[in-house]
């Protein structure tokens, strides 16, 4: 009979969860950086205060491009990658 209630978690599993956390935080951190930039330099987001600018000045907003890159990475790359990582971890257990 096993009287030990708390079973030790293998070090490998801990490292893998840290990896999943690291990968899944890359996208949100990039999105956050984009929003932080927009708050720090709101004049770079021309859409907030348009004054007769041409199409390109309204379409291309650098902080929003950072948010877009972060979102694209998060949804297209990071999510399936974390799913694969967890699947591999589960198979290894």
């Amino acid at each position, binding site marked *: 009979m096993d009287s030990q209630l708390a079973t030790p978690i293998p070090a490998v599993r801990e490292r893998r969860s840290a990896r999943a956390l690291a*990968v899944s935080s890359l996208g949100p951190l990039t999105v956050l950086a984009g929003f932080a930039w927009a708050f720090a330099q709101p004049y770079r987001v021309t859409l907030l205060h348009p004054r007769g600018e041409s199409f390109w000045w309204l379409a291309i907003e650098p902080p929003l491009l950072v948010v877009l890159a972060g979102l*694209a990475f998060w949804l297209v790359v990071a999510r399936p990658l974390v799913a694969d990582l967890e699947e*591999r971890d589960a198979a290894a257990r």
Partner: protein
Amino acid sequence: MQPPAEMVHWLFATGFLLLGLVLLAEPIVGEEVWRMRRWRVYLWPGLAFALGVLMWPVMAFYTNSAIHMLAHGAWAESLMAAGAAELGLARGKLRHPAWRVLTFVGLLVSGLAFLVHEQNPWLFARSAFLHHLLGWTCVVASLIPLARVFRPRSAALQSAFALVFVALAVMLFTDRDVAPVFGHLSPVAGAPHR
């Protein structure tokens, strides 16, 4: 209807940022997990190749001078060659690790193209400063893909390679057509806008 040059820099910055994030994710999860889905293996070489293809319209439409055209053309070719070599290695059509030398050449040519087509000194304006900074960053950082030829599985080298693209993206995002740098702006640069 052509976008200002600074916007082209920002659009390429977005591509480089995405490329950096993709490159950074691979050493974090390890090669085995990264290769669990086939499309992921082609992701960064494909992005590099696409950025090379997109340099051609830049070459065709932003012909400020002959040196601009030559620099952008050489840049497009070297980026496409680097992307194609990495695609070949990912697909297994190319096997010899020496093909990775093309990535070193791609980054080196990119750096030289930045330096060659910037004719103004460092503190002329922000764009001049950034072109010098971007150029020297690419030239020095090209040693990283060269080292990867000999140590292709090094996570440290791949992470450093990824961070180079993130740094390049940050520099490209700070680019403006006419803006001061450290309080310096040449009177012949023109009037800064917004």
